[in-house]
């Protein structure tokens, strides 16, 4: 299928299916996205996929928006919208249905225990994504290159700033951008 409609359909089905197995978050299924986009359909090279992923990480917003960039690369603006809708629509409806169900069960003791029990996993995984991002950021010239002392200092400074003060983290992002421009 080479026509535009066929490609859009492939995008829609592919990302909708991937979204429904994305337990733990959209980032959990990046390898599966890579397989769909590079191996199954041959829409782009591995290197291009990595570039788009890095770009989505650098931009604000949910990291899962990398699917929008993939759609854009493959089929322009329509592709971007179709990919984003496919990734968010079915999963969103599922979450909405769950939320309605939860509203009816609210107050049930077992549900309270389940919700409390998921908290440490949520916090542990935020921690873990911070560690992984910090490891990547410590090598600004790319994986395998020298560790940048400045980058590590920026990460440590911003960790302490966010942990110990209630000021907006936007300040440290600005400091990071300026320090990067001047020193990296």
């Amino acid at each position, binding site marked *: 299928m080479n026509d535009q409609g066929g490609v859009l359909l492939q995008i829609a089905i592919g990302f909708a299916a991937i*979204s*429904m*197995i*994305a*337990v*733990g*978050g959209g*980032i959990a299924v990046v390898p599966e996205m890579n397989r769909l986009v590079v191996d199954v359909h041959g829409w782009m090279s591995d290197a291009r996929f990595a570039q*788009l992923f890095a*770009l989505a990480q650098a*931009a*604000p*917003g*949910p*990291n*899962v*928006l990398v699917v929008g*960039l993939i759609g*854009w690369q493959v089929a322009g603006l329509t592709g971007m919208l179709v990919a984003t809708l496919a990734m*968010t629509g079915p*999963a*969103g409806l*599922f*979450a*909405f249905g*769950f*939320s309605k169900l*939860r509203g009816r069960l*609210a107050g049930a003791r077992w549900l309270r225990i389940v*919700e409390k*029990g998921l*908290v*440490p*996993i*949520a*916090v*542990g*995984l*935020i921690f873990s*994504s*911070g560690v992984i*991002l*910090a490891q*990547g*950021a410590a090598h*600004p010239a790319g994986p395998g290159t020298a560790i940048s002392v400045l980058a*590590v200092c920026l990460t*440590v400074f911003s*960790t*302490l*700033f*966010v*942990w110990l003060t209630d000021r907006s*983290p*936007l300040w*440290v992002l600005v400091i*990071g*951008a300026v320090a*990067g421009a001047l020193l*990296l």
Partner: protein
Amino acid sequence: MPDVRPPAFQPTVAQLFLTYLKIGLVGFGGVNAWARRVLVEEKRWLTEQEYAEVLGLGQVLPGPNALNVAIQLGDRFRGGPGALATTIGLFGGPLVVLMGLAILHDAYGEVPLVKAVLAGTAATAAGMILGTALKMATKLKPSLPIIAVGIAALIGGAALRLPLPYIVLGLAPFGIAAAWWTMKARA
């Protein structure tokens, strides 16, 4: 229903949209840390515990967890229209930014200054995520078994690099057991 606020604290659909638009647009390094910052510290629509719980559910549900959180919160405050408002806010703004960036990136992505700015921002964004995790961990005052489950999730994700579904589904029974134990011990 414990999570429903008195009417004075109910944000309108427009407030939900604007707040989530902001969360999306400032959300460098991933949205969850920023959603916590805005919802818990700035707006005070949720307590630390409530946000952590809704995020925990968002991770177990399939799909992007920031989306799952946005939909649950939108629905709790304002039903279907609220859920739609948070979702469009969360994705709409960043999509426009991303489109612009994609065009610019093709033209300027290899300019050294742009790379340096992105590298500096990435380093501080990583610290922002780490600081948020530390803040949540200290404010939630977890019991020892809960801490153990959290550390297991951290090791599974950061050191062992296990796929996230394995971590979430594998640790959920232990987390639930730890929460049950904690409830009994503190009762």
